[in-house]
């Protein structure tokens, strides 16, 4: 007993001695020119051989022994800084790094911590330079399309900005913009995403190994943060393209307040302005109009070194309209329609350094997505007018409060904890149709769908710790608890999250992770004309939350000499309580509760192998990623309850992305995409019409065939130069689908000859754009 007491005394004394010999250095690492916080910048003490990286807000905290320290601070694209000093107490030290001056910087996709050393296996940080370097569709840089070059992430249909992550569906991705949830991320019917790459600062993509601070979606998390604006001087940029243009302005308002504002719009409407004018003046003819815009703005205020506040606002809108008026001897027919899709979000956030090694982030975010369709039909028939008006509204909004605490007690622990409270408002489908006959004054007024909003509440609490168990073994463990309440139903879930990284050698590591994710909000997609309308539903007592369980393992290798990363990962994911549209398909035609038109309790399974080679530096840089995967679904009411391939079951997916620095002014970017075709259902026979029934095709299963292989090459030539006045200019030529490959969008059947045809709408698309900075 005495020996035990002595032993415990020695342990406690040792700890207190050790604790007394340590202190914490913390602060922000920023861009010296703009004042923007640098995310994942590396701070390393060469004397204690310990380092850390900045968090999503540019804050770092490093525990060091008292005495001399030799700090080396680095960030890709910036000049390293070294500082030697004597430290005997907790100290706040902020660093400002100067960017490396080049007219065209090398484009990189890498992390400041080498890939093989990171614990979170499924996480990738996509630098914005990568997004801008990828040859773009119609000349608009697209963040969502850039993400599809990561292994395990595939695009949907030709030209669309949807993403499908490790067998998941498009509605299983949580997309955050400065903390606000975005429910729809597309413009132009899905061909361009909402994100303006000029204002984006950081993109973290998680496709597995989700840390406990994230939840609510089954397949992926995409956490996007915007820039805060230049803190030192006023700058701007104007970008002119063939189909759209945009501008950006940023700068300080005072010495503590700075702002950034960016906007884009298209001018497709100008092309058909005359047709619209003619229709409005004469009431005859037809037209189709379309326009979109998006605005991002942010104001940041730093009243002190430890306290920072920001207000971020986002608004995006797509408006399309059409009209057609036809007149005949005995009848007239007028049809007008208008579809408006809107995304609006606001985040008020605060970052506070409570003490050395303790960082707090609070935010209050509001986001709303709505789509509204209005149609007007007028028929003059046998002397009387019949007029039908139809409106359909679908909307989701949420108000979310988050408080995140980060605590760095030592070099061996990095603890994150927090709470999140969300209030949702769902309006999944309110359809109103009213008809009147002018002569007889008969009116029918039918309202179907939900007539009142549905409120739901989601409360989350989490804790996670990044633990250095050993010099070679690092663990990220966490647990997340969620209570979801809607009407008289409660769902309570506990989700474990665990990731480990084992350094086999200095350059080679093994990683593994296991996660459970529950999803309480679900999306159904309805199509009107060429546009897609997303309808968000909440879990109810009849619609249980979706669930995904995922395990993955991988090997990672970094070659410092070649500046290359190699990785191979495999994953297995099981999904439960999936939703699918069950007939009738046209939700506007549905006169029943929405619950009755969806197939519920579906299951999914996806598994595969992902490989990637990444070269981050040099005149030639880029990546090659290849995914081999399988993806299946099963619903009791579909395909007679048998498993069938998911629509986006692409067996092979190869992406090659490269950038070549020709000289100081010119850069050539190239992408090559090769993927197996998506699934479709091919009939195995045809039953001709008879006296009893109409004709129909017969099938032996859903998604029993694959479309042909998809492949295309995109090129972009970029020229950057400075004018005599010192203004940076850029001219870019983009060619989408250089060899005009006729990739299929969909198949259709011609009843006249009984043959099946392929529809292609995008062949070679060259575009140009010009931008100037001031």
């Amino acid at each position, binding site marked *: 007993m005495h020996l035990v007491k002595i032993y415990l005394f020695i342990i406690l004394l040792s700890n207190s001695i050790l604790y007394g010999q340590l202190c914490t250095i913390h602060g922000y690492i920023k861009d010296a020119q703009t004042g923007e916080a640098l995310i994942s910048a590396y701070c390393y003490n060469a004397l204690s051989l310990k380092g850390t990286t900045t968090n999503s807000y540019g804050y770092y905290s490093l525990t060091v022994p008292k005495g001399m320290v030799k700090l080396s601070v680095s960030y890709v694209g910036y000049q390293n800084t070294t500082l030697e000093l004597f430290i005997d107490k907790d100290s706040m030290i902020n660093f400002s790094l100067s960017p490396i001056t080049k007219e065209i910087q090398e484009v990189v996709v890498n992390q400041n911590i080498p890939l093989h050393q990171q614990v979170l296996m499924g996480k990738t940080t996509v630098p914005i330079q990568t997004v801008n370097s990828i040859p773009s569709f119609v000349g608009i840089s697209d963040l969502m399309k850039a993400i599809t070059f990561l292994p395990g992430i595939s695009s949907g249909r030709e030209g669309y900005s949807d993403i499908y992550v490790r067998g998941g569906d498009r509605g299983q991705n949580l997309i955050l913009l400065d903390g606000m949830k975005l429910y729809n991320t597309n413009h132009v019917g899905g061909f361009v995403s909402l994100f303006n790459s000029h204002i984006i600062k950081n993109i973290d993509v998680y496709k597995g190994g989700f840390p406990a601070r994230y939840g609510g979606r089954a397949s992926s998390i995409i956490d996007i943060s915007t820039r805060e604006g230049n803190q030192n001087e006023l700058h701007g940029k104007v970008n002119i393209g063939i189909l759209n243009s945009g501008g950006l302005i940023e700068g300080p308002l005072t010495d503590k307040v700075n702002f950034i504002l960016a906007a884009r719009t298209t001018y497709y409407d100008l092309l058909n302005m005359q047709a619209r004018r003619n229709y409005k003046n004469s009431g005859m003819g037809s037209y189709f109009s379309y326009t979109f815009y998006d605005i991002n703005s942010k104001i940041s205020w730093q009243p002190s070194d430890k306290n920072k506040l920001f207000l971020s606002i986002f608004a995006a809108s797509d408006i399309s309209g059409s009209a057609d008026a036809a007149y005949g001897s005995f009848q007239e027919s007028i049809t007008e329609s208008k579809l408006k899709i809107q995304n609006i979000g606001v985040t008020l956030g605060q970052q506070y350094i409570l003490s050395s090694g303790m960082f707090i982030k609070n935010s209050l975010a509001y986001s709303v997505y709505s789509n509204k369709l209005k149609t007007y039909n007028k028929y003059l028939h046998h002397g009387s007018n019949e007029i039908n008006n139809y409106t359909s509204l679908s909307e989701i909004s949420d108000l979310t409060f988050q408080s995140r605490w980060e605590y760095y007690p030592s070099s061996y622990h990095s603890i994150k904890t927090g709470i999140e409270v969300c209030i949702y408002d769902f309006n999944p489908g309110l359809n109103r149709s009213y008809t009147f006959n002018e002569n007889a004054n008969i009116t029918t007024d039918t309202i179907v769908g939900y007539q009142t909003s549905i409120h739901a509440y989601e409360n989350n609490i989490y804790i996670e710790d990044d633990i250095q168990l050993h010099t070679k073994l690092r663990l990220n463990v966490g647990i997340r608890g969620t209570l979801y309440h809607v009407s008289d139903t409660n769902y309570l879930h506990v989700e474990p999250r665990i990731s480990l990284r084992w350094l086999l050698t200095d350059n080679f590591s093994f990683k593994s992770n296991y996660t459970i994710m529950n999803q309480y909000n679900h999306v159904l997609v309805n199509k009107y004309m060429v546009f897609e309308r997303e309808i968000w539903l909440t879990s109810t007592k009849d619609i249980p939350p979706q669930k995904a369980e995922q395990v993955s393992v991988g090997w990672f290798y970094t070659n410092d000499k070649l500046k290359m990363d190699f990785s191979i990962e495999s994953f297995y994911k099981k999904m439960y309580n999936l939703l699918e549209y069950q*007939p009738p*398909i046209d939700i506007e035609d549905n006169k029943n509760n929405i619950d009755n038109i969806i197939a519920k309790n579906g299951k999914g399974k996806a598994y595969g192998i992902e490989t990637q080679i990444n070269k981050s530096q040099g005149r030639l840089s880029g990546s090659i990623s290849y995914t081999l995967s399988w993806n299946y679904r099963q619903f009791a009411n579909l395909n007679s309850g048998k498993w069938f391939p998911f629509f986006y079951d692409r067996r092979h997916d190869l992406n090659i992305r490269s950038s070549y620095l020709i000289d100081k002014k010119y850069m050539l970017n190239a992408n090559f995409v090769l993927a197996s075709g998506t699934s479709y259902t091919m009939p195995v026979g*045809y039953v001709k019409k008879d006296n*009893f029934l109409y004709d129909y095709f017969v099938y032996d299963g859903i998604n029993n065939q694959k479309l042909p292989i998809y492949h295309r090459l995109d090129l972009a030539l970029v020229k950057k130069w400075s004018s005599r006045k010192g203004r940076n200019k850029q001219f870019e030529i983009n060619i989408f689908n250089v060899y005009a490959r006729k990739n299929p969008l969909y198949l259709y059947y011609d009843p006249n000859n009984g*043959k099946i045809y392929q529809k292609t709408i995008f062949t070679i698309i060259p575009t140009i754009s010009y931008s100037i900075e001031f």
Partner: protein
Amino acid sequence: MEKKSHIIISFIIMLICLVSCEESTVLEYKTIYGDDKIVVHGFISQQDGVNVIVKKTVPPDGVTNNDIIENANVELFENNHKLFSLIRKDDYLYHAPDTFMPKIGASYHLEISSAGMPKAITSAQVIFAPTPLDSVKLFVEDQTYYSNIVVYFNHYPNSENAYYLNIIHYHNGSIDSADLYWNSINLFSFAGLIENLKNGPNAIEHSVNKMYEFDSILVKFITLSPDLKKFLKTYKDYDSSREDPYYETVYPVYSNVTNGYGIFASYSSYPIFVRKDNVVTIIHEE
């Protein structure tokens, strides 16, 4: 010189843009087709007997191919005992003898065989009594083109019944020629399916065309068996998906035929005659 090259390049790009802006490109696909399979479209009821169309599938791109089965043998079974082979009326239609009346409560199925094709066997169908109509009222609008008929009946709890209204117009005791044509084809249209009713008394409205100038109408209130209801529902959904050019999921039509396609289903109809002089006329004052 550089500025000029920018302008030239931009002009070329614009030209290519205009030239390459095509909306669609068409390529022909080969369809897949296995062996011919037997197709059955058959109905059985106490009121109308047994009427069955038997044919075969054709390839998806062979819509003009011959679908006649020359040597089919169609056998009717009652409670799993063979009754007789159906009589062939033409290339497709088979029917039971006129003296045959299905029994209420009995179960019937078909087995169809033909050389070179696997034997097709349908699910068993039970004959049931029809759901009676309480009453029928006919409303005629004096100023509009259409009239409405309302049928009143009881829908029983826990019943999965679905219903169908068939309206036949008579002039001077003869069936209207248009109705004769439409009732000789498309016995059931999925658009007329009535379902999702509340328990207890129900009233269903149906339009009647005033143009026929009828003197009486025959209202057939048809109760559908579960298989027939499922077939019509899936056909309706299949038809909806077919119209959508961007459809991603096809909804196959339900079949209760093993080794084949189609439907053999029972129904039961309850007829009521309504004379025109019993109608309720709604008059709208000017």
